[in-house]
């Protein structure tokens, strides 16, 4: 465990040790702990000692942390008091470059815009997409080297989710790497992914807007089709969006459809390596895959938190939250809450009630693409199990420095065929 200087206290202490701090000094948002995977002890301590916790000073100003499953449910389902307007991450609302997107809106506009985008991941489209996804998964898996070390994130997780995203947008396939890039740019912490300032970020996102504006102009002049751009261009609630609102909703759908599933695809490999008895269970019975998919999504929790703003004074688990306060629901913590999920730190592929997790959120902002995500992960594991006896993790994963996107940039693996 590394020891780093903690500037706020003046002394030197281990920033990865949850008990090196007084309760009221704890700031769970530090990226460093997500990189080192040491945030767990902090959340465990808060769940035990101060489940609705006030952090008075942080990079993002003061905020409340909600860390228990039941309390998170209460906040997530009370959209009348806990508003999403203006942003859904801890970091939002600081910059003057505001991107309106429906996840960060309240009723009624949220509902109107969401309904336009919803059919692209609706049941009819999903049925059509299933065979496309399976073919792509097969092609990607068949191209992988056997017995050689490679980065699973690049070769499988990113490639697969980016191809899917390109299909949803009917985006020029040869340019699909741009989608991955824009997704990274949108969420990267400053100083990572080549994004050193907010200006860097804005410049690249405006390139994204320019590119998608051309697509919009093509689609708006053609009859309506089933891709997302066409739906937005023709939808009553979205056809008059201003450019920043268009960009905001694009970023939402790019990040929502990309970063999340990508990291669950990687997280599943890591989880099965950390829990080899579960991997044996899977080898013995692949009918467990659908249940395992839910368990992977819980165990990974690809988005660590969502933020709300209190619209009025309110009481949550005995704490007085004031109007205007930032309230952060730590899904990553609620998904490990022993009082709601037995053996929560364990990865159990045949877990009872595995679907009962927080990773998709609950209430009106619940993930719209969850069925597509589950389908992608399910098909990927079905095809993996037909081909490979073992995906061995042969080195340490490299984690993304973010308290929002909880994921990986590298996972070195070696494949063994049956």
């Amino acid at each position, binding site marked *: 465990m590394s020891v780093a200087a903690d500037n706020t206290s003046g002394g030197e202490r281990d920033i990865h040790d949850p008990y090196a701090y007084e309760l009221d000094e704890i700031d769970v948002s530090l990226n460093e702990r997500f990189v080192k995977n040491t945030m767990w002890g902090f959340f465990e301590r808060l769940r035990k000692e101060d489940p609705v916790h006030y952090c008075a000073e942080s990079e993002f100003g003061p905020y409340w942390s909600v860390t228990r499953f039941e309390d998170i449910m209460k906040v997530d*389902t009370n959209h009348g008091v806990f508003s999403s307007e203006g942003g859904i991450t801890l970091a939002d609302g600081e910059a003057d470059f505001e991107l309106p997107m429906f996840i960060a809106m309240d009723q009624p506009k949220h509902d109107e815009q969401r309904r336009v985008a919803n059919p692209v991941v609706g049941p009819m489209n999903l049925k059509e997409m299933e065979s496309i996804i399976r073919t792509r998964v097969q092609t990607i898996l068949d191209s992988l080297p056997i017995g050689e070390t490679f980065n699973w994130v690049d070769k499988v997780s990113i490639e697969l989710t980016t191809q899917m995203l390109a299909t949803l947008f009917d985006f020029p396939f040869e340019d699909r790497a741009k989608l991955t890039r824009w997704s990274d740019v949108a969420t990267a912490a400053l100083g990572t992914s080549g994004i050193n300032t907010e200006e860097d970020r804005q410049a690249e996102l405006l390139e994204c807007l320019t590119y998608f504006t051309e697509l919009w102009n093509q689609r708006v002049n053609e009859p309506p089709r089933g891709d997302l751009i066409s739906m937005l261009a023709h939808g009553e609630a979205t056809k008059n969006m201003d450019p920043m609102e268009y960009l905001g909703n694009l970023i939402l759908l790019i990040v929502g459809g990309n970063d999340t599933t990508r990291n669950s695809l990687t997280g599943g490999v890591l989880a099965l390596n950390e829990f080899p008895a579960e991997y044996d269970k899977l080898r013995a019975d692949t009918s467990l895959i659908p249940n395992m998919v839910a368990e992977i999504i819980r165990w990974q929790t690809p988005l660590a938190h969502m933020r709300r703003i209190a619209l009025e004074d309110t009481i949550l688990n005995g704490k007085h939250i004031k109007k205007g306060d930032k309230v952060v629901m730590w899904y990553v913590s609620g998904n490990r809450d022993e009082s709601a999920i037995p053996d929560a730190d364990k990865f159990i592929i045949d877990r009872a009630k595995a679907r009962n997790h927080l990773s998709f959120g*609950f209430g009106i902002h619940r993930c719209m693409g969850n069925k597509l995500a589950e389908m992608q992960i399910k098909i990927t594991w079905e095809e993996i199990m037909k081909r490979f006896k073992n995906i061995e993790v042969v080195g340490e994963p490299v984690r993304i420095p973010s308290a929002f996107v909880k994921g990986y940039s590298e996972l070195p693996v070696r494949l063994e065929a049956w």
Partner: protein
Amino acid sequence: MIKVTFIEHSGDVHEVETETGSSLMEVAMNNDVPGIDADCGGGCSCATCHVYVDKEWLDKLNPPDAMEESMLGLNTMREDNSRLSCQIDTTDELDGLVVNLPEFQG
């Protein structure tokens, strides 16, 4: 005991005898009626227990509250007789209730 009937989109019929008191979602889950995920465990917050209530039973139910209305409202496949089954309490009055399960939850 009352009898409730779930009809899948495929036409498969599940007739279930149940004690009153639990929600219609719980009745479906306890009797392995397919197509109801109930991801939120009955909290009216995931909308995965959507049913179409047979029209003659509609006015025997309490109307949806604001939260149920919000959750139903996000679904473009919502019909006038759409309800979330976790919000329907089984009572003696509902003996004979018939609900249809939507294709999108299949």
